[in-house]
């Protein structure tokens, strides 16, 4: 199967059986081992694959493992299925449809790092996902699939609760608070254990690379950003949901998978902490580097389609308000800055701006950018800046007094 995958470009995460026997029958047994030779070959496959984290930061997975392995002591693998982004559902879908792939990825990383246990984090309220994980774990127990114990924990469902340092803090102390980490190469800790926190989708790719090698992964996607990615599409589309596409698929082809219901005014790419993209950029590949060159960000795999009948300013005001409400409440620039920016946007959408409005919001965006302990405020700043640019015409109209507070917006629904 490894050869087939590498040559036919049939690499994919979704579409394999969800039950354990079907999973093993289709994908083959998981390579096991903890010998230095196995660890070396797995690690080099991970490095050669070019896999980057799929939780938003895209940090190379092999480097994260390397940083962990530079520090001695016991270790734990944390499966991050928090998915606090309201318009992202990829990790839910993945854990429902391929839970064993995610668990296999965690298992491989445990073998490669000497971790003695695995913790799976599914937030409170996502009971269906938790049941799917629980069912998968009992299937594995029944056949003694692995000796590494796996526990399922249920942190609170908040936007920042899935930020990796906040997740570690919750497991340690019961409080979902991000910590200030100037040097991210120092591993997070759960008590005395080093913790390796990975997004669920990242782990599913790790499981595929562990089985089929780097070439299979690289048979799809771009040379500099290989593999497939899961993208949640919502908004002005007939068929909202999660799709799996090759990394680097043009935005217009991604959104076409969900059948837009009208002509599109813009796409919100990367989630609420992503950026608005105007139609003349819809040819841009969904990948970090091309998106960065147009001032956007790949973020988590999210595309929200905004129809021409919807107001980008009002939608942005609503998202900014939500993001302000989701601050962990620790850092002044986030606690005071995000509500101030959200207020500015609400004044705009109500058509009640004064002459200093533009200077004030620009100053606040600059003041808040990069000044939190985590990246929560930075994402909001990027999203708002992109809105001021992409919706420049609407901004001018609202500054002239236009108000569309009363219109119904379907693009952003929780």
């Amino acid at each position: 199967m490894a050869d087939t995958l590498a040559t036919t470009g049939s690499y994919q995460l979704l579409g394999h059986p969800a039950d354990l026997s079907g999973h093993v029958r289709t994908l083959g047994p998981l390579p096991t081992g903890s010998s230095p030779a196995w660890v070396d070959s797995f690690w080099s496959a991970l490095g050669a694959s070019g896999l980057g984290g799929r939780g938003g930061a895209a940090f190379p997975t092999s480097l994260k493992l390397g940083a962990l392995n530079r520090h001695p002591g016991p270790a734990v693998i944390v499966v991050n299925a928090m998915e606090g982004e309201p318009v992202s559902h990829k990790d839910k879908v993945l854990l429902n449809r391929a839970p064993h792939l995610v668990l296999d990825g965690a298992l491989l990383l445990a073998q490669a790092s000497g971790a003695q246990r695995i913790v799976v984090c599914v937030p409170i309220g996502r009971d269906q996902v938790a049941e799917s994980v629980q069912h998968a774990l009992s299937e594995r127990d029944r056949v003694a699939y692995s000796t590494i114990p796996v526990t399922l924990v249920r942190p609170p469902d908040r936007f920042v609760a899935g930020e990796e340092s906040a997740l570690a803090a919750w497991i340690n102390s019961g409080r979902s608070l991000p910590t200030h980490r100037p040097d991210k190469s120092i591993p997070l800790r759960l008590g005395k254990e080093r913790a390796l926190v990975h997004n669920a989708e990242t782990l599913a790719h790790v499981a595929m690379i562990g089985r089929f090698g780097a070439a299979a992964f690289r048979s799809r996607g771009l040379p500099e950003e290989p593999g497939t990615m899961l993208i949640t599409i919502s908004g002005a589309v007939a068929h909202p949901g999660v799709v799996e596409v090759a990394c680097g698929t043009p935005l217009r082809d991604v959104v076409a998978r969900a059948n837009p219901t009208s002509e599109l005014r813009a796409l919100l790419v990367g989630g609420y902490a992503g950026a608005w993209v105007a139609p003349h950029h819809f040819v841009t590949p969904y990948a970090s580097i091309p998106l960065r060159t147009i001032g956007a960000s790949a973020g988590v795999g999210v595309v929200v389609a905004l129809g021409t009948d919807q107001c980008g300013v009002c939608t942005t005001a609503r998202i900014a308000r939500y993001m302000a409400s989701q601050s962990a409440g620790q850092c002044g620039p986030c606690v005071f800055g995000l509500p101030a920016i959200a207020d500015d946007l609400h004044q705009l959408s109500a058509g009640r701006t004064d002459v200093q409005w533009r200077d004030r919001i620009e100053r606040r965006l600059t003041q808040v950018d990069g000044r939190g302990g985590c990246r929560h405020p930075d994402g909001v700043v990027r999203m708002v800046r992109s809105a001021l640019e992409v919706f420049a015409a609407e901004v001018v109209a609202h500054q002239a007094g236009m108000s569309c507070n009363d219109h119904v917006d379907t693009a952003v629904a929780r």
Partner: protein
Amino acid sequence: MSAFRITIDPVACDAYGYCAELLPEAITLDEWGYPCVNGNPLPDELLAAAKRAARDCPRRAVTLQAKESAR
């Protein structure tokens, strides 16, 4: 230029503002009273005042950091 720059731990900071008072050349306050630094190396002549700002912060949020560390 010295080998040090100022960093603020935004989680620890509670906007007492002493740092900006002690080192206005390198620390300004935003409209909510929280310190802003530019991340550049400190000139030698400001090093003594910077050490004092770090020492006197009630929240221990001000640090003098050697340029090379921190990613």
